[in-house]
Every structure is written in C-alpha cells, then in structure tokens.
C-alpha cells in the first residue's frame, strides 16, 4: 500500500517545547483520517509537519514520498493547508485573493471561480474586500483558494469551525469528493458526530504522540461524552 503520510517517532520542537514527542502515523493515499484529541495535544503541529512548515528534529517523516527531515520545503506546493488563519489579504477582493493564490500555484483563474462556486460564495461578494466579509464567509473563501490549488494532500485544522450547517455540508462533500479522486485528507476536528461520518478512520493525538497504533484499521469508539474535560496543556494549537 502506498503511503501518503509516514511518521515514525517524529519529534517536532516549538522553541524547546516538544509539540510532537515521537509520533507514529501511517496514512494511505486516498484515505480520510480524523485527528482527535484535547487542546494542546499536538494536532496543529502534526498538520504543520505534514505541510512541511514545522521542522522534524528527529525520527522519520515522509509525506507523498518526500523526506521531510531533509527536504521539507519540497512538499509544500503539493499540499493544501487550512489553518486557523485565513491566508487572505484583507484589502483585496474575494476574487483577487483567490486568483492570486490559484495563479501562484500554477492553476487557472477559472479554477478559482469554480472553487468559489463550489463553496457557494455568492457572486455579489466577489468584488468586496475580504475585510468586509463575515468570519464564515472568509473561511469559505480561503477554502476555495485552497481547493483551487488542487492539492494532493489536504490538511484541515478545524475545518468546520465558524461555518453554518450548509457550509459544513459543502466541506464534507468536498472532502469525500477529493478522496474519491485520489487525494488524501487529514483533518482535526472537535465536531465528532459530523467528522466520524466523513472519516474512514480516526486516530487520537495525545501528549504529542499518536495513540492509535499505525494501520490500526477499525476506528475507535467515540469516547464517553460524560468524561472529565482534559486539562489544558500548553497551547500548541494556538
């Protein structure tokens, strides 16, 4: 089985704080994997490592066949990351933003328009500066900018946050569609009901490690909703 993501004992330091403290994870191509875990568990860092943005200081880390320990910048143009930030220029309009990021990635302007349509961003918004949009609308625009790049690996950090029900449906639909055409999706979410439906598999991230054994196919049962809330760790998610 060809792997999209292959981590073995991967350590990633934020300053001197081990945000990832020896994570093991294998994700097959075309798989949709949900990352679950308390705040500060290292989910965001795990996604940033896979995007080639955070450095792996020891261990093995390969994404789409690229060795991240040596050439982490080589992976960047092939992945799409949706984080807590929107990656949009506030003073540019919706279409100017999407066009810029689409063309930067070598995609066509038409790809950007199609993506905006898929995200159901109303065309009356297209010529408005991004800073006049609501948070949810901005999120849709930045999702469109990511989709327009046609990434091979989607890394979504709380993709449902700030979206209304129809927005969430659109994103879930896009995730399934991406997987059906061979893209791999790794996403972190706290919306477990919704996320479990989309994901092929769930892994749990705790204390900078992935608890579920690699290639452990059957998904975990959902945890008891009555369990005590986790103690807040250092906010590597922030």
């Amino acid at each position, binding site marked *: 089985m060809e792997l999209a993501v292959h981590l073995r004992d991967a350590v990633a330091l934020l300053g001197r704080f081990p945000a990832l403290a020896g994570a093991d994870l294998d994700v097959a191509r075309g798989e949709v994997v949900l990352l679950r875990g308390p705040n500060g568990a290292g989910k965001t860092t795990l996604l940033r490592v896979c995007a080639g943005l955070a450095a792996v200081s020891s261990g093995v880390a390969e994404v789409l066949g690229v060795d991240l320990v040596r050439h982490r910048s080589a992976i960047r143009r092939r992945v799409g990351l949706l984080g807590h930030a929107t990656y949009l220029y506030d003073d540019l309009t919706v279409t100017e933003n999407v066009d810029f990021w689409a063309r930067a990635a070598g995609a066509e302007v038409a790809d950007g328009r199609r993506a905006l349509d898929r995200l159901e961003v109303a065309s009356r918004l297209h010529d408005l500066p991004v800073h006049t949009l609501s948070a949810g609308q901005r999120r849709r625009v930045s999702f469109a900018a990511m989709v327009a790049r046609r990434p091979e690996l989607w890394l979504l950090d709380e993709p449902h946050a700030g979206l209304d029900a129809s927005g969430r449906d659109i994103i879930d639909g896009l995730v399934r569609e991406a997987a059906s055409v061979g893209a791999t999706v790794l996403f972190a979410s706290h919306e477990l009901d919704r996320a479990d439906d989309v994901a092929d598999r769930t892994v749990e991230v705790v204390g900078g490690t992935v608890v579920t054994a690699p290639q452990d196919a059957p998904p975990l049962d959902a945890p008891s909703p009555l369990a005590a809330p*986790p103690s807040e760790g250092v906010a590597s998610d922030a």
Partner: protein
Amino acid sequence: MTVDNPTTGAGRPPGAASEPPTGPPTTGSTATRVLGVITLVGIAALVLLGVFLTPADAELGDTIRILYMHVPTVSTAYLAFVITAIASVMYLWKRTEFWDLFAASSAELGVLFFALTILNGMLWGKITWGVFWRWEPRLTTTAVLMLTYVGYLAVRQIPNDTRTRGTISAVIGIMAVVNIPITHKAVDWWRGLHQEKTIFGTVDPDMKGLQLFTAYLGLTVFLVLFAWLLIHRFRVAWLAERAADVGVDAAIAERRAERAVPSSAGGAS
C-alpha cells in the same frame, strides 16, 4: 580571565546524561591559557614599547603612540566581521549551531573592537584637531558600520526559535559585510572633496626600526587577544545553549506521559 561555567549547578535530571563531549565544564583549556599568557605578556610589552621606549614621531609627535593601538583594533574588527560573514554562509549551508554561535561571538567582539577604535580615534582627534569628532572618512565609516552590527546584535537579543534566529542573523551577517567596501568607497569620495589630515593619511610610510616593530607587535597582540576572547565567548555561548537544552529530553518524556491520562478525555469540548 576565567569565565564561570554556566552549567554547573544547573541540576541535570537523572537519565538526561546526554551531555555532548564537546561541551567542556569550563571555557578554559590549555590552548586558551597559552593564548591568555601570550596576550597579557604581549600587552605589557606593547605598553612598554609604545608608550616609553619608542621615539616620538618627527611629524606626529607623541600622537603616533595611539596608532600602535588604533591600527590593530580596527584591523581586528574587520577581521571579526569577515569571520562573521564566512560563518554565516557556513550556517546557511550546514545548518549547524556551531556556525551560528561562532558568527555571533565574532560579531560581538567586532563591535567591541570598533568601539575601541572610535574611542582612540577620538582621543587622537582631540589632540590633533582640538576636537573629539571631525568627519574624517575612516572614523565616519567605522561609526556607520558599527551601527550596522549593533543591529545584528539587537536581532540576536530577541527571543526566538534557534533556527529562525540563526537564519535571520546569518542573512544580516552577509548583508552587512558586503556593505563594508561600499561604505568605504562612498565615504572616501564624499570626504575626498574636503581634504584634511587623517589618522591614517599621515602614517609615515618609512617608520624606523623600533616603531615598525611596535606597530607589528600591536597587530599581533590584538589578533591573539581576539582569538583568545573569541574562543571563550564561543564556549560560553555553546554552554548556554547546552544549559537550555538540558530540559528538552525531560520535556519529551513528560509530554509523552500526558497520554497516560485516560484517553477518553480526548475530544471533549
């Protein structure tokens, strides 16, 4: 000059016995002790020769004595900045902490020697011109370049990820060194319009035996002093990094222990 070992008493946790063999318990070693002795003897000899034994210059009078220090400090400073630039290039290439700390240590000493240069240049000016400062090309260049490197040191003061700090300061170290010849040329042309006595322009090309010997002795002594200080400064920086590293292995273990907390806690919120 002995420098305290920053790691003593840093209470290493058991099990974290990963002290690298390169980190000596003190910054002193046989080499630095030899260098230190040479430096101290050299400085004493330089003071003796420069202040008492050499004759006053026919044209410059006693002010020539300042040159025995001025020329070495400014030369050493330029050498320091070239070393910083080379180490910066090496850092961007090799990405090892060694080159980053080496570049920083050298830049720090370069600024120190520049400051000394400006001070003794001003003393010379007070005696020769009657004022501390005149826009003499060499001193002006020195002052501007020193500010460039003060910026370099300021950047290193800002707490940051070591890789970010290393990359940014390496870029500055390279940008700044290229500015040295350009600034030299620009200031020369600029002040060339206003010819006046300069601290270098009047150096007698045919210094007599003892004067010439003293000039070379000064250069040698300051180079040895620089090497001595550089080794110590680098080792202090290295040990400081090791001291900060001591916690990392423990932090990883502690972080992994977080998962011992019942995993059912995951996902709530």
